[in-house]
């Protein structure tokens, strides 16, 4: 078994993320791979199908920078703050280009990843007439009767991203990766993917992982990159907290197309990498 190659992030993205790919940068509020998303923006990937339960600021940025033509999601706001203005501009006014939507509920999208991770074509949950999403948003869920009880079920189609990208706290010498804290659907998104890329806070000799910890074995991972602060402005439990001030400030930046473009030019396109961005923002210690 060969150890996971530790690649510079720019090389990992150029090698593994291609125009037109379906890409899931997962992490539920926690461990959002911002550095990887910014590198995708710098490399000007186009026509991506972005998949995330909560698009968050990272997809607001990628959509506003023209990387995406399709979005699969289940809740598209700035958590605790309000709208994702770039996402709204794309849906309401097709700026910078039209964005096709596949919209689910959280429970459905979690199930879609589980189905993808399990190698089955769909997964089921009880059906209820709870929401217009099924009829009007057309996420592609279907109804069928339970073969045992006859009760109606909702079948959610499997999601298998071309690439899933995660941020994690630690990688060991053999390339195994540890994720600690709120895990969201990251394991399912990773196991569903054709290729898994990770960015990590630090490299250690051995992981001090509990027996039931979330560990991705090295042989599941296509490439790993050492990117301290790679989840900023989201957070890495045990390393740094969520920058709630940044999430509040983003509302003002993203509201206006010119302010947004200027911010992205200066803080993403205008810097060589994530460390330079953190220094520019005054966040690097």
């Amino acid at each position, binding site marked *: 078994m060969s150890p996971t190659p530790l690649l510079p992030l720019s090389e990992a993205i150029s090698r593994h993320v291609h125009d037109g790919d379906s890409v899931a940068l997962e992490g539920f509020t926690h461990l959002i791979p911002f550095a990887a998303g910014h590198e995708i923006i710098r490399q000007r990937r186009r026509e991506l199908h972005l998949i995330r339960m909560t698009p968050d600021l990272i997809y607001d940025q990628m959509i506003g920078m023209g990387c995406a033509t399709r979005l699969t999601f289940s809740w598209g*706001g700035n958590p605790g703050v309000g709208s994702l203005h770039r996402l709204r501009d794309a849906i309401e006014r097709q700026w910078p280009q039209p964005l096709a939507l596949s919209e689910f509920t959280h429970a459905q999208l979690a*199930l879609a990843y589980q189905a993808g991770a399990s190698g089955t074509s769909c997964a089921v949950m009880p059906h209820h007439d709870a929401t217009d999403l099924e009829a009007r948003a057309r996420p592609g869920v279907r109804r069928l009767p339970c073969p045992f009880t006859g009760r109606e079920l909702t079948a959610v189609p499997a999601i298998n991203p071309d690439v899933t990208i995660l941020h994690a706290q630690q990688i060991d010498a053999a390339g195994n990766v540890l994720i600690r804290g709120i895990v969201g659907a990251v394991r399912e998104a990773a196991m569903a993917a054709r290729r898994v890329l990770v960015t990590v806070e630090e490299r250690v000799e051995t992981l001090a992982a509990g027996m039931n910890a979330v560990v991705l074995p090295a042989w599941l991972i296509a490439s790993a990159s050492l990117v301290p602060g790679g989840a900023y402005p989201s957070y890495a439990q045990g390393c*740094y907290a969520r920058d709630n001030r940044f999430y509040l400030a983003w509302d003002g930046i993203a509201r206006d197309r010119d302010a947004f473009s200027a911010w992205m030019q200066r803080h993403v396109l205008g810097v060589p990498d994530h460390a330079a961005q953190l220094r520019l923002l005054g966040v690097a210690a």
Partner: protein
Amino acid sequence: MSATAYTPDEIMTVTAARQLADGAVCFVGIGLPSAACNLARLTHAPNLVLIYESGTVGVRPNVLPLSIGDGELAETATCVVPLPEIFAHYLQRGRVDVGFLGAAQIDRYANLNSTVVGDYAHPAVRLPGGGGAPEIATYAREVLIIMKQSPRSFVSRLDFRTSCGYLGGRGERAASGAPGSGPRAVITDFGMLRPHPDSQELELIGLYPGISTEAARAATGWPLQVAARLETLPPPEPRQLATLRELEARTRTAHARPIRIPL
């Protein structure tokens, strides 16, 4: 602000907190629901079990989270479970007593819209969407709704039904097989509404001190039914206000703390 004066947000939060019985298992949304649940936990309901959809179960945060998944929630939780589990094993399996929701629009049967204003394909305003709300509204044994009342938010017809209340009323929800019993109360900045036992149409059952029925009617986009015996809801007690203000002060301090990352 004096100990007896209070803001509309404060009386809404306190009124919502009073609806929570000690020991209940509560699925919490961010914003006013989160403030109300933690106020209840810090006052009359110390054994309230708070679950946030980030998979954090039994949280006891010292400050209110800005997002549904702040580190504070994980650090103070009994356990942190994967997202598919929180929806399947806890919510769908029927282990949640109270779901707490807000929305952009509500109709007279307490159905909610948090998806779009206007047409779905070409919306005038794209809202964040359903997230966990459709399943919370379906599976929680009962639901509390907290939202500000205005003709724009209390509408005669939803642009989109994100989450169900009583559907078309008169037992339609129960007939549809929804496991939970539906919204028990809607707490607004004017007072409280509850579903009528037969029609299930929301009716005004209480007003805060100094608020008139006419004002509540004017803030509602349908002809609002008013209960025969309209209560005056009690103002916040000094202890509740003090606890809420301390919690919010701690929260402001924590959220203003600069982040430093060693490279």
